[in-house]
C-alpha cells in the first residue's frame, strides 16, 4: 500500500519537475510547511497511541467483548474502538482472532466501525483543521452510527 503511494507521488513529482522546476520547488516547500505546521499535534497523537495500546492490549480487549457480552459488550467495544488507533493490517487479523476467541459479530462490528471512524486520540489533529464543534459532532455521529453497523452486522451474520 505504501509502495503504491510512493510510486504515485514519485511519478507525479518527476513529471512536475520536468514541466516546471520553480513550481515543483514551491509545491515541496508547501508540503514541508504543511507538515511542520501539524507536527506538534502528530507527535502528541503517537505518544497517546503508544500509551493506550500498552494498556489496552488484545488480551484485555477480548476479555471485555468476549462471548455473550450483549449490548453492554457492544457499547464497550464501541468505546474501546473509539480510543484506540490500530492500523487495519493489524486490526483485521486481530478481530478475526477475537471472533475465534468467542467474541460476537455485533461487538466486532461496533469495534471495527469506531476503530476506523472515531478517533479520540487523533482529536488534537482534527481540531486544528476543523475546529472543536465539527470535530466533536463528526466523532459523535460516527460513534452512534457504529451501533447501526453493529445491529446490521449482527442480523446478517447470524443468518
Amino acid at each position, binding site marked *: 500500500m505504501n509502495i503504491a503511494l510512493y510510486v504515485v507521488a514519485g511519478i*507525479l513529482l518527476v513529471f512536475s519537475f520536468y514541466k516546471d522546476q520553480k513550481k515543483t520547488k*514551491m509545491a515541496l516547500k508547501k508540503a*514541508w510547511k*504543511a507538515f511542520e505546521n501539524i507536527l506538534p499535534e502528530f507527535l502528541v497523537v*503517537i*505518544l497517546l497511541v503508544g500509551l493506550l495500546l500498552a494498556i489496552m492490549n488484545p488480551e484485555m480487549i477480548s476479555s471485555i467483548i468476549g462471548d455473550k457480552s450483549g449490548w453492554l459488550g457492544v457499547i464497550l467495544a464501541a468505546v474501546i474502538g473509539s480510543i484506540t488507533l490500530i492500523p487495519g493490517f493489524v486490526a483485521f487479523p486481530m478481530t478475526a482472532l477475537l471472533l475465534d476467541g468467542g467474541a460476537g459479530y455485533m461487538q466486532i462490528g461496533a469495534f471495527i466501525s469506531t476503530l476506523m471512524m472515531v478517533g479520540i486520540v487523533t482529536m488534537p489533529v482534527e481540531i486544528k*483543521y476543523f475546529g472543536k464543534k*465539527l470535530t466533536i459532532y463528526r466523532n459523535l455521529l460516527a460513534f452512534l*452510527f457504529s451501533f447501526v453497523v453493529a445491529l*446490521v452486522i449482527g442480523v446478517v451474520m447470524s443468518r
Partner: protein
Amino acid sequence: MKKIVKRYRVFLIVLAIMLVITLFNYDLGINAFGVTGYSLKEMILVIPPVFVLLGLLDIWVPRETMIKYMGEGSGLKGIILAFFIGSAAAGPLYGAFPIAAVFMKKGVKFSNIMIFIGAWSTTKIPMFLFEMASMGAKFAITRLLIDIPGIIIIAFILSAVMKEDEIKKIYESAEHFDD
C-alpha cells in the same frame, strides 16, 4: 526557541508523563514507548508521499477545476468523486485532514469534504481487500453496504448542524495550513 517550546508544550508534557509512568511501571512504560516507536515509523513512512501529493495538488490543480468537479453545484459527480478519492487512499485518518484543508482552499463543497473524510476513514479499497481476507466476504461487503449511505447521511447532518459562518471560519483557517 521560546516559540518552539510553546508549540511543542503539550508534546513535552505527555512525554514527561510517560517517563514518570515508566519509573513506576517499567513494563507498561517500555511497552508504550515501543508502540510509539512503531507508530512513529508508520508515520515517517506514510507522511512524505501524502504531503508531497497535497503540495502538488495545491500548486498544479486550478481552483476552478476543483470547484467544477467537487464544488457547490457539483451534485452527484462531486459525491462520487469524494468517495472515490477517499477510498483510493492509504494510511491513517490523520493523513486525510491536511488534504481536506487543500480541498477547502480549492473551493470543494463542505459536504463533499465530509464524504471524503468518511470514505478515507472506513471504505478504503486496500483495507476492504484486507477485511475480505480476514473477516470473510459476507462481513466485509455488509459493512461496506451500510457504510456508504452512513457516510453520506453523516456528511449531510454535519452540513446541517454547522452554521454558515462556522463553515466559513474553518475554510478561512484552511487558507493558512502552509503558513
